[in-house]
């Protein structure tokens, strides 16, 4: 008996030994900073002087800051269009790829390739692709008789341009969906075929229900990622024209590192966190109605 408890204690010691890198790292680089961030958000802090407590001052100031609401609107706009479009687009591609076509590996590679292009190189490439006069996109549009918009120089088209660019990099979702589709048991389809189900019926009654967990996963991670969109806007438009691509993270970054309003930026980060938390909780609640678990 005593021997066993000694063993358990030895194991517990080893357990903490093994996970200690994460514990130390979490305290220093994540958990500690998170608590500090909560404190900073209640202070006026410029990095040059020490933090000065102002209660909820930053939060009330944010709600009266027109650029805060602009950046929030831009970010929601981007998320609302990019995530559903990305999911539909990559799901359709995965369906096509799953049709036992030859050369699957080659297609998969081609679709995935754009998503590994480094963000900075990608942004520079897209500035050029979206060039109103000589860019590839407007050149192609001109060939079919459409005069393309000014994209990044247009207040109306700058966000759609960045959404289009993000859709180009949606390859990893294609791979996730494809893997999900390949996990659907073949017997289900065979049984449906015996019953004389049409292709459409098979899709809606077998494929779609069984894919809902995968769709749910991409939805959750997709929204969390989209709400933090930063690099493209920082490099391609720097928030312009007329703040039409001033996304939330970009405005937060500006407050922190251009205006040195660290407390203000920390408050922004916490609001973003709360938004993500609420959206995620709502999605998990809603998931009970539409996500199908075997």
């Amino acid at each position, binding site marked *: 008996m005593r021997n066993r408890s000694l063993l358990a204690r030895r194991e517990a010691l*080893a*357990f903490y030994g*093994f*996970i200690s*890198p*994460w514990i*130390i*790292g*979490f305290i*220093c*680089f*994540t958990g500690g*900073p*998170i608590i*500090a*961030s909560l404190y900073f958000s209640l202070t006026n802090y410029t*990095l040059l002087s020490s933090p000065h407590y102002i209660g909820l001052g930053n939060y009330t100031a944010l709600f009266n800051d027109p650029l805060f609401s602009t950046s929030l609107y831009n970010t929601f706009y981007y998320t609302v269009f990019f995530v559903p479009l990305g999911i539909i687009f990559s799901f359709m*591609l995965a369906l*096509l*790829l799953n049709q036992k*076509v*030859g*050369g699957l590996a080659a297609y*998969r590679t*081609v*679709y995935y*390739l754009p998503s*590994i292009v*480094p*963000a*900075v*190189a990608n942004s*520079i*490439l897209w*500035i*050029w692709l979206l060039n109103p006069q*000589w860019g*590839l996109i407007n*050149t192609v549009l001109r060939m079919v008789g459409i005069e393309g918009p000014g994209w990044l120089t247009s207040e109306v088209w700058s966000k759609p341009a960045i959404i289009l660019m993000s859709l180009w990099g949606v390859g*990893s979702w294609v*791979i*996730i969906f494809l*893997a*999900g589709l390949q996990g659907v048991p073949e017997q289900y389809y065979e049984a449906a075929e015996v019953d004389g189900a049409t292709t459409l019926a098979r899709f809606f009654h077998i494929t779609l229900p069984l894919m809902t967990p*995968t769709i749910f996963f*991409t939805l959750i991670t997709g929204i969390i990622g989209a709400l*933090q969109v*930063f690099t493209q806007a*920082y*490099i391609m438009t720097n928030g312009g024209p007329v703040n039409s691509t001033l996304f939330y*993270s970009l405005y937060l970054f500006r407050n*922190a*590192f251009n205006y040195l309003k*660290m407390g203000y930026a*920390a408050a922004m*980060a916490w609001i*973003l*966190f709360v938004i*993500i938390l609420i959206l*995620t909780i709502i999605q998990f609640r809603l998931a009970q109605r539409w996500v199908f678990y075997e």
Partner: protein
Amino acid sequence: MNRFRKANLVKIGKQILRHLTLMAVGAVFLLPLLWMVSTSLKTNRQIFVYPPQWIPNPVIWRNYSEVFYYAPFLLYFRNTLIIVTLTILGTSISSSLVAYGFARLNGPGKNILFLIMLSSMMLPYMVWMVPLYVLFTRIGWVDTFYPLTVPAFFGNPLYIFLLRQFFMGIPRDLEDAAKIDGCSYLRIYWQIMLPLVKPALATVAVFSFLNAWNDFLGPLLYLQSPDSYTIAVGLQVFLTQHGADWALLMAASTMAVIPVIIVFFFAQKQFIQGIVLTGLKS
């Protein structure tokens, strides 16, 4: 017989249609990259023509050497390589250690700790970005590689999760035998378990390579003197200096993309597997 042939023809027709659709979409995905390479091999006079020239005539290789003339991309390359190597090393070792602990050993508070780790993945990095910057400024790490490499040695929740799944899939018999022989946990981890999860480690290595190579925000915040720039930041500065010189910009971008594509082609299996695992098991 006739009906049979007809059905066969329809089948072939459908197959061709599928391939045509897949190829059309493939072209949409591929053309921007080809356009980048094509532009990088042109003079301005070849760039500004309508209809566009896909294969430059003549091919202007000079753009690539000119990039090196304007910016020390070899230095940026070296800096990036140092950061990437340390990140891969740190992430693989620390994440596998922690993952082994969570997969095989028991201790009080294990489940809560694991839950904390998983939920920390959902937090937006912006929440700890500001205090972390303050911390690194205070301890004098700004303008060194430390902020970009040291955290890698303390495990990454996503990779810990992934490796833990792998460790849990390994039968316990081997370890039990080793334990009876009096092997220490560290030796079991290092000599028995680690070799068995090599494929998963390769996936982790490949993804940490990609993330470190592509990281922009980190180097943007912490690397201030031009001598310490990575390719990502160097490229952005290059853009601000040569904003309208498309051939040079595309040549520089192509050079930033090529290493990633090379690694991708050598490690395709790991990429696909990594995405699938993180996508389906979460």
